[in-house]
């Protein structure tokens, strides 16, 4: 096989990004692209370079080092050389470099390239520190202002090029698993910048409310904000509501359940893709941000399928934390309506075509849970029960249960069997949380 064909045998996919020099060297040996003489030359020059680097590392005070230290130094050498080779686009050129360039020169070229990578990463960090969204999440803030700067302070290109000497806790959405040292940091910062760029499309207050809705302790959790916000944005797009509001309440989730539960996986994926396209257009997302956001499609589709099947959309689309029931609510159990007015209201409710209009009428007119209970039986259909009950706050539902128990003469919820379907749904509602 002539050399041109042999070069084509080494494909980039066979090379390990985290040990690039070693894998390229191995593949070149395996395919016969390097002669025995060239292999020996490379190995001897590596030994010579190792000796020199150990001398430098120990300030020429020790001729020997512990094996672990020597392994680290060699890893740093090969990491630098590997980075230089990785950034040479053509496979033919890579092999020619191995054949012709002295290892010492390849190492120094590598250190220059890694140094440039580190500088680019520093630039990305400075931008983020200046302009990033400031959400209420400790890990996000700490990573940008403490963890990442620690890397630039501690990073040793010559003797620790492969290391990441910093505590970087915040998880980016698309994790990086196979890059060493400064290369990892540059890629991490690129992804963080893309995510931050997306997050800046939203008011920080909305992002913070979403976090609180996800978990009261979200400020201290290691959670990827991009995924949370993008998921809810997609939900808003599916609902046809304002994308930057982010809130998806119980009523909206019920609507999503009804409209999506009978679609198969492929149809769901198409819906999500269309939603993402709309988001890209409405929020005027940069092409790179949009491409990055598309990585959510596959995992989100699978989660959506599961959550629809188990009727747990609340675990996927987050509702903002609702106000505590101590605040004034539309359904304070006050004085019941006069009979005549109640009958008139019943007529109005029966004339309404939409459930949402009926709910509005209830809010505007009803002060007593006893009246509410009567109207549920007389004016609402089975398919409307869930939506109406979810509109009530927890406090209101608790009052309603008490009203039902009192009417039936029951003393406690335990062991009580409600008679009517809407009552059964009411009592089951809190059990399912």
């Amino acid at each position, binding site marked *: 096989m002539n050399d041109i064909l042999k070069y084509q045998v080494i494909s980039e996919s066979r090379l*390990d990004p985290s*040990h690039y020099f*070693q*894998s390229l*060297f*191995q593949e070149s040996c395996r395919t016969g692209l390097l002669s025995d003489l060239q292999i*020996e030359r*490379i*190995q*001897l020059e*590596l*030994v010579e370079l*190792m*000796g020199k680097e*150990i001398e430098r590392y*120990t300030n020429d*005070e*020790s*001729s*020997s*080092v*512990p*094996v*672990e230290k*020597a*392994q680290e130094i*060699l*890893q740093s050498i*090969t990491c630098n050389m590997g980075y230089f080779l990785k950034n040479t686009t053509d496979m033919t050129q890579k092999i020619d470099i191995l054949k012709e360039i002295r290892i010492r020169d390849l190492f120094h070229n590598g250190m220059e390239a890694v140094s440039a990578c580190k500088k680019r990463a520093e630039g990305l960090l400075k931008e983020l520190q200046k302009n990033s969204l400031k959400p209420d999440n400790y890990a996000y803030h700490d990573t940008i202002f403490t963890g990442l700067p620690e890397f630039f302070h501690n990073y040793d290109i010559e003797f620790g090029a492969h290391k990441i000497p910093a505590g970087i806790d915040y998880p980016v959405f698309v994790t990086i698993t196979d890059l060493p040292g400064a290369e990892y940091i540059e890629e991490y910062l690129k992804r963080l910048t893309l995510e931050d760029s997306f997050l800046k499309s939203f008011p920080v207050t909305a992002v913070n409310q979403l976090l609180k809705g996800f978990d009261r302790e979200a400020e201290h959790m290691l959670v990827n904000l991009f995924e949370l916000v993008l998921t809810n944005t997609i939900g808003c797009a599916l609902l046809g509501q304002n994308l930057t509001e982010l809130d998806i309440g119980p009523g909206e989730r019920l609507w999503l359940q009804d409209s999506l539960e009978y679609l198969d996986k492929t149809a769901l994926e198409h819906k999500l893709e269309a939603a993402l396209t709309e988001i890209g257009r409405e929020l005027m997302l940069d092409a790179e941000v949009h491409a990055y956001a598309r990585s959510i499609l596959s995992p989100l589709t699978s989660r959506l399928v599961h959550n629809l099947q188990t009727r747990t959309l609340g675990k996927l689309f987050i509702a903002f934390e609702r106000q505590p029931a101590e605040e004034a609510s539309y359904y304070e159990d006050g004085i019941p309506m006069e009979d005549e007015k109640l009958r008139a209201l019943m007529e109005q409710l029966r004339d309404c075509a939409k459930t949402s209009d009926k709910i509005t009428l209830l809010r505007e007119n009803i002060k007593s849970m006893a009246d509410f209970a009567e109207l549920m039986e007389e004016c609402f259909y089975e398919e409307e029960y869930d939506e109406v009950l979810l509109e009530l706050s927890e406090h209101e539902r608790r009052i309603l249960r008490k009203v039902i128990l009192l009417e039936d003469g029951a003393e406690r919820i335990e062991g009580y069997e409600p008679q009517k379907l809407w009552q059964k749904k009411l009592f089951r509602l809190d059990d399912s949380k």
Partner: protein
Amino acid sequence: MNEPFMLLPVTSQNKQTVIAIRGCNEFTARYGLQLSEPEIQLLTENRREALERSGRIEFGGGVIQKLIMEFSDSPFLRQENYLETLTELQECFYYFKNEALEELSDDELIKLMKKYFDDVCQGSVEYLQTTMLENYCRDVRYGTTKYRDMDGYEDDYIEFLDWDERE
């Protein structure tokens, strides 16, 4: 793939050690000390084993040349015990490089070994290992400055041999 030393050949390092040891014979002749070719090979092999046992790695000719040059004028070194003593000293050196947590340079450790070998230890490598060096390195590890007060230490500290002058 993750084992970096698979890239490196072993035999070339042994060659350098042999050349380095062989080169010392001319200097040590004045003290009546010589190593034959088989003895050089044995010493080289011992170096490899001592490094392996101590979990260390060395590039180039190694420290054996410095050990030979430093100890060749010792009154306790004779042709009859030359190979055996060098073998033990080499082993001792790599062991105590670890024990001192890399805090002592090669030259500092060799000078220390020579000082106590000729003085308190009266030519016994075993005594050197189990008492003087053990105590000294313990002090180094714990960061106590007691070792600075050892007899004659202040006078000898960082007084490096100039190899060119000695030759």
